[in-house]
């Protein structure tokens, strides 16, 4: 299943946007324009759909409705998310709109929850039950196993959304930093435990794949393996061809940031999830490697049982200096009325058809107008 289109109203920076999504989608834009907030929509529906999730908690975890709603939302304070999905011939639409109750505990009330399958309405809320018992409007049908049985497919799809933005320092200095892990581990703190839960045979096969990539990217690198220490804690160990031949194995806390990022990137692609969100995969990586990220994605995903959709936010010219389909790019740009989103226009697509890369055509548009002045501050 893939998400083919997304409409947002009053979601974080976005007052009103309507964009198409492809099996690979690249999100570009200047800093603080809302690239992470864009990705957060998909994490949000996951947080509703996953077990132990739910709408109230998903909103709470984001600091409540006031943090989640667009600042530009004045008269109309409803937040609305519409997702269009496709699996083969089957088309789904999931629409959710909600706002705060405006009294008491400020619970979140659903103002609309609509599911359509091939244009036929599967659910359309509020319905008569909701009218009888208003409390029902505090829970989506998406989060309820009994209620979502006619659209379990999309509920399962949402639950499987993966976000990985591996922060090497969190992994390397886990003990020293000593902060609690965030639910779903978006920043890779618990990456090793994630590795540990995968069946040994699968894990070894995946590590062999990662090892093959690494030995190309890091020439002195020779071997990668999964180990548990005496206390049973999981570790990654790598061996390098070294000037000291018996230098031995190194643990993950000695890996370079780039090595860890590359391991995280390939691992996330290998996991059998349907929608993968990648935040700036270029970080810590040499441009020569970044250049190949689109190809690494294709070759790693090839033959995967679940055809995966990947949404990537990036600033990287090296990454976009590829033969990427111009239609798969979403440019976010700030306006007085919140962030707007658009695809390349006909002029820009024509320029790409003439042979220019998305990096050449689109990235210059993400540069703030007065960027020259930044050095004078």
């Amino acid at each position, binding site marked *: 299943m893939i998400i083919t289109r997304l409409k947002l109203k009053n979601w974080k920076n976005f007052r009103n946007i309507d964009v198409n999504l492809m099996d690979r989608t690249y999100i570009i834009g200047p800093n603080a324009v809302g690239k992470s907030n864009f990705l957060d929509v998909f994490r949000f529906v996951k947080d509703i759909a996953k077990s132990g999730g739910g709408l109230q908690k998903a909103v709470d975890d984001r600091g409540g409705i006031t943090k989640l709603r667009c600042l530009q939302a004045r008269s109309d304070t409803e937040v609305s998310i519409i997702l269009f999905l496709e699996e083969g011939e089957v088309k789904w639409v999931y629409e959710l709109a909600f706002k705060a109750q405006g009294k008491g505990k400020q619970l979140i009330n659903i103002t609309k929850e609509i599911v359509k399958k091939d244009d036929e309405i599967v659910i359309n809320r509020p319905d008569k039950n909701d009218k009888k018992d208003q409390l029902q409007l505090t829970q989506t049908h998406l989060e309820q196993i009994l209620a979502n049985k006619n659209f379990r497919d999309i509920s399962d799809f949402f639950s499987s959304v993966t976000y990985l933005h591996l922060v090497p320092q969190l992994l390397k200095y886990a003990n020293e930093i000593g902060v609690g892990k965030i639910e779903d581990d978006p920043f890779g703190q618990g990456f090793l435990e994630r590795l540990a839960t995968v069946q040994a045979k699968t894990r070894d096969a995946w590590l062999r794949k990662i090892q093959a990539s690494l030995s190309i990217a890091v020439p002195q690198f020779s071997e990668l393996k999964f180990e548990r220490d005496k206390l049973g804690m999981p570790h990654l160990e790598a061996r390098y061809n070294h000037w000291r031949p018996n230098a031995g194995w190194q643990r993950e806390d000695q890996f370079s940031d780039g090595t860890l990022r590359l391991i995280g990137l390939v691992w996330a692609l290998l996991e059998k999830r349907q929608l993968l969100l990648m935040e700036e995969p270029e970080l810590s990586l040499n441009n020569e490697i970044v250049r190949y990220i689109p190809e690494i994605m294709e070759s790693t995903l090839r033959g995967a049982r679940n055809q995966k959709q990947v949404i990537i936010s990036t600033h990287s010219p090296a990454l976009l*200096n590829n033969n990427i389909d111009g239609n798969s790019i979403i440019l976010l740009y700030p306006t007085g009325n919140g962030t707007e989103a658009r695809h390349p226009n006909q002029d*820009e697509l024509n320029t790409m058809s*003439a*042979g*220019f890369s998305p990096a050449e055509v689109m*990235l210059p548009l993400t540069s703030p107008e007065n960027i020259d002045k930044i*050095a004078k501050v």
Partner: protein
Amino acid sequence: MLDISIASEDTLSEATLTKIVASLEKFRIVNKLGRSDGCGNIIKNIEKYNALSRIHYVMVMLDLDLKPDEDEFLASIYRKLKRKEDKLLFSVPVREVESWILADKKGLSDFLIIAEKKIDDNPDQLLDPKEKIVNLAKKGKNHEARMGIPPKMGSAAKVGIFYNTLLKGFVNETWSIERARANSPSLNKTLSLLEQIA
């Protein structure tokens, strides 16, 4: 409005060419290309620019640098093309865009705070106009330019770290195309080329 894309090798050239094209008030700039590619790559990828010029005008700006002859330089580029499109235009500063900047003597003397007579009359004939600007900035009374345009002592760089930003500011705010074209035949040639397009 006529559609045009411009291509240049660095941000200072881009700012200068943008101002020139905009000054004619008949073009809509569709793309600003080239500089993310790095220098030298424009010529390598010239066929792409040629392909784009099937859609609309494309002006490619390439410094002559130390090459002896402009016609010969352009001929060497044309030879790389299967068939040069009519709308593919070339702008060739002699020897680099800095001579166009030097060509507005009044503007530059106001900016650097230096006597106008210290600035050369025929900047297209300078072998190293960049170095010229650096030396003028060193002598000028504009403190910011004196500190930012020349390289730091002992630096391996040819120009200072604020060079592009300061000169771009000058081009955008002060530089006069009309004053400059009178002193630079190569700038005048680019302008005439753009003026002829109807």
